[in-house]
């Protein structure tokens, strides 16, 4: 299992993914890999290589925007075909998924948690609504991981 926080801690709310991963360092069960990456498609593919479950957490711009709102969705795994492996809601994860499908390198299961951003300007630190969402997303990810950890 792997949890991948996508984002840049120096682009304000784009640091949401890494912030959730940081929160999980003390909480995640053993055997879960925690990765932070900038989202470049080949790095994502390398990060989830061989994983039965990959959970990706990333910031997203939405219009209209409701900062701090969290979206959770599952992306179809291998064999589902490119038609279903679509729409990560403009996360930039799209390219990684399409490349992974083309190369037959999707994880067994891919769950995405997307947090709507307020501020993506340069600088460290999350905006208050996004900071407030970090804990809840971490808990939701622990719930995603739960069945896999218990089923050892």
């Amino acid at each position: 299992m792997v949890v991948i926080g996508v984002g840049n801690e120096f682009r304000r709310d784009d640091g949401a993914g890494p912030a959730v991963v940081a929160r999980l360092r003390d909480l995640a069960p053993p055997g879960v890999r925690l990765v932070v990456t900038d989202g470049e498609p080949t790095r994502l593919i390398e990060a989830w290589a061989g994983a039965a479950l990959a959970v990706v957490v990333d910031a997203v711009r939405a219009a209209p925007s409701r900062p701090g709102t969290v979206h959770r969705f599952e992306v179809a795994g291998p064999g589902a075909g490119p038609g279903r492996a679509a729409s990560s809601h403009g996360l930039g994860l799209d390219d990684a998924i399409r490349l992974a499908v083309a190369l037959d390198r999707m994880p067994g299961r891919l769950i995405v948690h997307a947090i709507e951003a307020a501020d993506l300007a340069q600088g460290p630190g999350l905006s208050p609504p996004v900071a407030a969402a970090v804990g809840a997303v971490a808990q939701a990810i622990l719930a995603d991981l739960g069945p896999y950890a218990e089923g050892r």
Partner: protein
Amino acid sequence: MTHKNERVLSVAELARVEGEGALYVRTSGDRVQEVRLEIYEPPRFFEAFLRGRAHTEPPDITARICGICPVAYQMSACAALEDACGVTVPGRIADLRRLLYCGEWIESHALHIYLLHAPDFLGYASGIEMAGQRRDLVERGLALKKAGNAILEAVGGRAIHPVNVRVGGFYRAPSRAELAALTEPLKRALDGALETVRWVAGFDFPDYACATQDLLALSRPGTYAIERGTLATRSGLLFSAGAFDQHVIEEHVPHSTALHAHLAGGGRYLTGPLARYALSSQWLSPLAREAARAAGLGETCDNPFRSIVVRAVETVYAVEEALRLIAAYEPPDPPAVEVPPRAATGHGVTEAPRGTLYHRYQIDADGLISTARIVPPTSQNQAAIEADLGDFVQAHLGLDDAELTRRCEQAIRNYDPCISCAAHFLELTIDRS
């Protein structure tokens, strides 16, 4: 407001460069009047952010400037800080840094060649489309990239934002056994790299010579300079990092938040693989030189379209150099030397995959950074890229807008611009009247 004969094209984002950027071209009749490479994001955030930080912090902080070349930022930062503090790291630490840098070159070049640049030559809209139709090719590129990553992990501690790097050296030196484990994958990667040169050498290259004649790269006779050296230009200048701001002048241009660089008393210059190759090709390994010769590269290469071949040759060299360094490896003990801060200014230049990356730090009496200056290779290349685009558009005005747009994007990709190092958003507009 558009005139009757004006053509205006807009593309939402420039595909397949790192980050994003903006290009505006205006023609009148059959002459190109203006080419502007526009950058919207203030590039000086990190310089400001570093003020007041401890002298040990820039390597970690500046590594966040570029997702694809964090090692380059760390290496230039360490070089500048150690220069300020009057410290020269011992040879074993320098060699380990060179090995780390080879890992980054391999990873960055493989990514650019296979997923960003080759699709242009083969008629694919994207690396993803190419992966769907020529999976074997993309797999070869990924295998090469993975070999580079393995070096970054073994030496740097983590493939993204290596955490093992510190001012003075490393927190921990890998053991001989840990590095020896990379030998077999790197030998396979060498085959892949040589295959890559043969493959790209067969592409259809437009006959084109760069409009910008001067070239700037690090130089160190006896070796292909990466992590240290003296700055050299094709026009014959030779200067140390400390003289960078006397020789390289940066100026604001009205439309851009990035700065345009030129040589003092001279003009535009280009930095990156073409510059390195022109200045140091005789110092490549015999195998790399032979691969270059067989690929049709002369002693120098002035065709930016052929930069993909030069990158492939550099990848061969980086793999071989990594193997050589691993075979000769003696763990530095201690893994780092102490770098006590002092009130001084230091300068450092190293060769990022895209070209010379300059850092300057002024440290105050409390050991805190009082000023920082960072000049990425892509921002140095801005003026050269604009000039080449102007020439390119001038020669291809007969193309329709969609095709011209596509070709301009391709032409920009010749330079492997890491726009995220200089700025963030892009849109392409061609304005004909």
